[in-house]
């Protein structure tokens, strides 16, 4: 049920319903009350309103006006798709974003979506993203939220910045981050992608951190998120008053941090924690930097009277108090540890904050600082606000490691010689140091700052690509070093398929690309590192040489608004079928693409009743290949009546060859009649066995293989729009006893009744080839008979059974066989 409410009504309902969704991660938050308890109302997509819980994203077709040298629109589009789909890797989030096609500026559509557009933006602005809402607080399925109508991600018209080509780590991470904003996430301070780039410890190879996963999952939780992760909750108080927008962070010495922000009364909940024990600290948000919004880098929570300002600055405190992490807090799955309260001391302002850390691979600087296990002296270069002046560290500044197995070498923190306002620390990393993120603490004049994810320990240096050889028979050979460490090879934004590999050589089938396209090639390891960290990602190119692009045909090419159907998509001139496609409007939803041949796909679509009439352009993508077909589909107004099968309303029970399927038909002017309803499945006539109002029940012909089948129907001579069924394997059938015989092969019914305790043989069909004696049981009512042997024969099986001594004499017993929970029909066996 869905209702739209006035604020007062929503509030009353909130209080009645209680709250299950109070998450403190930085989302776009509203509070409906002026006083506590403050229950955050979050801004998010209404996944129940879209087919398959999939939110489409659209890319403005023209692309940016200017690109970096060697860059292309196709390459950029592939990176945008890859960055968007990073959010689909979160298993504990229900949200899935799907490519919806290309749009023109100002395209009109109705359904919720993300639009990626290119716009003239002022200098100094790299990207901009956020949700648009209609100011309505909505209750659905027991939760109250503000539904996102559409989100915008704006990239500049001028993307010629050589520091940010499409293949750069930096642009990719920016788009992942901005996409996070479009889905309902704000900034956090735990070094995930939703941190600002200054403190971010994610990479293109490992683009999401635990904090990002928790944040998106809190908005779109799966059952697993609720049941398998735990929470830490409590309050941050200063002088007995709650502190608004304090950041509370849970972390482990060798793991990623997860954080939450406090409500106006100081309450917080950190959700999405894996079971274990954590250090927890509360810290004030750093001031917004130049160019960032003030006073903090957030869209402030909205209360009834407008934006609610953050509370005052305070001294960072570890639970249960003090600036040293001594205690741990236990988290169990599915439970909330609600006793983690902080009492913090005010301070004038936050001076130490926003630490960025680097290391160098040759001339390439890499963030975060990656250090390798066994490295005797690894250098980290850093800059932290309030930590240095022109000649080096501010007197009294100290740096320590957060319970790490590494050792900070003397003299601790010192001026980075080439640029003394930047700082350096040197670490020794033991051979057996576990891989993962580490954290550092900085102290100055009684102020403590924690830099989560300050550096990352890996097993080895990043993969190095030395040469990418031209393709031979469609296979590209890459030579280099450390290429086998969980390798993934990206050609622009799409992964190739590794056919063979060693540390020095990979043989890769590239993803589909456009003829003549030069794709940048990078190799990624499983620790978030990539060859681009060594070579900048520009150096190695694969050039595609593979003929032309096909022409595309869609059938049917005309659809009225408000129907569901299956389109048949064929390609002519080249044998590719798309992995993704879209019609450039959220009003035509593509919920499934089945590749059914080298040139043929079936595409399940739903057209919204609100869809505007007119022609639609089809955009198709596979790998980094991109194609378009003008006027591929035309939408009529809903007044054009077309019969269609309501696939979305079909029962969820499996259908299979030989079984039945109930087909609900919409837009009928009269009930269905048996005689005038015809169905063909994959071209084979399927008998209609019953009709009931608008529902026809058909028998699916035997012999159709499992998988997708196309369904065509006529009703009183009128064609119904095509539909698709996905056939499962037929369910197992119970065995059938065809005869009960003496061991001599004489039928028992023919005047040869056995005595109780005697052995008989049963001729049986429908047992699995591999049926074992111990799997087969025999009963008559409550009485069990002993199965002695199950033997395979030419026509089925022979089952030898010793009749129980308890068999009632002088009557026929109903003998059955049971196997795997399936029971045969009873076969009468006379007893002497």
């Amino acid at each position, binding site marked *: 049920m869905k209702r739209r409410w006035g604020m007062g009504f929503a509030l009353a309902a909130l209080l009645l319903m209680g709250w299950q969704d109070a998450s403190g991660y930085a989302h*776009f938050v509203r509070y409906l009350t002026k006083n506590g308890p403050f229950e955050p109302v979050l*801004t998010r997509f209404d996944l129940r309103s879209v087919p398959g819980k999939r939110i489409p994203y659209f890319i403005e077709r023209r692309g940016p006006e200017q690109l970096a040298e060697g860059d292309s629109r196709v390459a950029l589009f592939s990176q945008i798709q890859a960055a968007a789909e990073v959010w689909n890797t979160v298993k504990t989030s229900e949200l899935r974003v799907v490519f919806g096609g290309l749009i023109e*500026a*100002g395209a009109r559509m109705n359904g919720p979506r993300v639009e990626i*557009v290119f*716009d*003239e*933006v*002022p*200098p*100094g*602005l*790299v*990207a*901009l*993203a*956020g*949700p*648009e*809402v*209609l*100011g*309505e607080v909505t209750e659905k399925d027991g939760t109250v939220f503000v539904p996102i*109508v*559409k989100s*915008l991600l*704006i990239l500049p018209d001028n993307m010629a910045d050589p520091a940010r080509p499409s293949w750069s780590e*930096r642009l990719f991470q*920016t788009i992942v*981050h*901005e996409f996070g*904003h479009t889905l309902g996430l704000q900034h956090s301070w735990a070094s995930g992608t939703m941190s*600002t*780039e*200054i403190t971010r410890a994610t990479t293109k190879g490992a683009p999401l951190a635990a904090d990002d996963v928790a944040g998106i999952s809190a908005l779109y939780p799966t059952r697993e998120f609720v049941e398998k992760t735990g929470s830490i909750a409590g309050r941050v108080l200063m002088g007995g008053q709650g502190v608004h927008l304090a950041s509370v962070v849970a972390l482990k010495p060798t793991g990623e941090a997860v954080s939450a922000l406090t409500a106006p009364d100081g309450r917080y909940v950190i959700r999405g924690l894996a079971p274990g024990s954590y250090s927890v600290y509360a810290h004030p948000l750093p*001031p*917004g*930097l*130049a*160019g*960032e*919004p*003030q006073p903090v*880098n*957030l*869209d402030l929570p909205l209360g009834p009277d407008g934006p609610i300002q953050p509370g005052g600055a305070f001294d960072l405190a570890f639970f249960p108090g003090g600036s040293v992490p001594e205690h741990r807090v236990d988290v169990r799955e599915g439970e909330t540890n609600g006793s983690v309260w902080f009492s913090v001391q005010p301070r004038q*302002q936050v001076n130490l904050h926003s630490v*960025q850390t*680097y290391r160098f691979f040759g*001339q390439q*600087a890499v*963030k975060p600082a990656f250090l390798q296990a066994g490295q005797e002296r690894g250098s980290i270069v850093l*800059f932290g*606000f*309030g930590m240095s002046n022109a000649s080096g560290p501010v007197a009294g500044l100290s740096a320590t490691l957060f319970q790490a197995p590494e050792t900070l070498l003397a003299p601790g923190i010192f001026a*980075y010689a*080439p*640029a003394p*306002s*930047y700082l350096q620390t040197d670490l020794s990393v033991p051979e057996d140091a576990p891989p993962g993120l580490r954290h550092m603490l900085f102290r100055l004049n009684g102020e403590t700052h924690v830099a989560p994810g300050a550096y990352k320990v890996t097993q080895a240096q990043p993969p190095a690509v030395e040469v990418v050889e031209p393709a031979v028979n469609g296979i590209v050979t890459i030579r280099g070093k450390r290429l086998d460490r969980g390798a993934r090879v990206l050609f622009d934004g799409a992964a190739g398929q590794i056919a063979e590999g060693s540390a020095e050589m990979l043989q890769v089938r590239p993803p589909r690309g456009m003829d003549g396209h030069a794709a940048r090639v990078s190799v990624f390891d499983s620790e978030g590192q990539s060859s681009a960290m060594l070579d900048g990602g520009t150096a190695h190119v694969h050039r595609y040489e593979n003929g032309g692009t096909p022409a595309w045909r869609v059938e049917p090419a005309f659809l009225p608004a408000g129907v569901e159907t299956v389109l048949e998509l064929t390609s002519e001139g080249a044998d590719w079928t798309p992995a993704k496609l879209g019609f450039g409007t959220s009003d035509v939803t593509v919920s499934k693409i089945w590749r059914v041949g080298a040139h043929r796909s079936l595409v399940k679509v739903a057209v919204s009743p609100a869809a505007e009439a007119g022609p639609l352009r089809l955009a198709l993508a596979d790998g980094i290949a991109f194609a378009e077909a003008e006027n591929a589909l035309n939408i009529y107004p809903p007044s054009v009546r077309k019969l269609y099968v309501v696939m979305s309303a079909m029962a969820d029970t499996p259908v299979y060859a030989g079984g039945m399927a109930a087909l609900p038909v919409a837009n009928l002017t009269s009930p269905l009649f048996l005689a005038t309803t015809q169905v063909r499945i994959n071209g084979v006539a399927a008998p209609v066995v019953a009709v009931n109002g608008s529902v026809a029940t058909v028998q699916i012909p035997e012999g159709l293989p499992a998988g997708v089948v196309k369904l065509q129907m006529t009703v009183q001579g009128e064609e119904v729009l095509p539909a698709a069924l996905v056939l499962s394997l037929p369910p197992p059938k119970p065995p059938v006893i065809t005869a009960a015989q003496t061991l001599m092969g004489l039928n028992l019914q023919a005047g040869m009744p056995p005595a109780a305790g005697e052995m008989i043989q049963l001729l049986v069909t429908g047992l699995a080839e591999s049926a074992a004696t111990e799997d087969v049981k025999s009963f008559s009512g409550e009485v069990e008979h002993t199965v002695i042997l199950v033997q395979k024969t030419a026509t089925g099986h022979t089952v030898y059974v010793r009749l129980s001594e308890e068999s009632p004499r002088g009557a026929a017993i109903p003998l059955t066989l049971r196997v795997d929970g399936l029971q045969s029909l009873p076969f009468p066996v006379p007893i002497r």
Partner: protein
Amino acid sequence: MRSLTLILGLLAAAAISPATTIERMSMDEMIAKSTRIVRGEAVSVEGVRRGGMIYTDYTFRVQETLKGGPPETLRLSVPGGVHGAARQSFAGTPALRLSREYVVFVWTSRSGVNHIIGLSQGLFTAGLNEAGERVLRRGPASSHVVDKNGKEVADSGVELTWGELVRRVRGAGVVR
């Protein structure tokens, strides 16, 4: 030895605050790239929709112009805002208070929309310092800002006097 330019260049490029992902600009860069530099106050505010986007438009009454020409009022657009029932949020866009004095580095797009350069980088509050000089303030940022070529920018930070800005604008060869 790693070069100074390299690391400064890197840090400059990395000093990004996404949401709004911005690239930090030096004062000279802002002076050069802005269409107008004006001092004045916002006198009214309204949400407008342009294309697919909602902007908050401020009517800005100009008291003094340091770069560029008239008019004496201009319409300043900030992405995001409220239009009718719709609210578009961009985590990280600035808001101006009415009747407060600002110095704004304005950048006018080809379509004629006036933006603040670098989002809030080109927005300064104006006031008087203890010596009675007119000063511009922007956020509590530290002096850690470097330009694209890796040079430290000394004046990007907390406070800048109006006189210094005038000197710099003239130094940049801009005719008033």
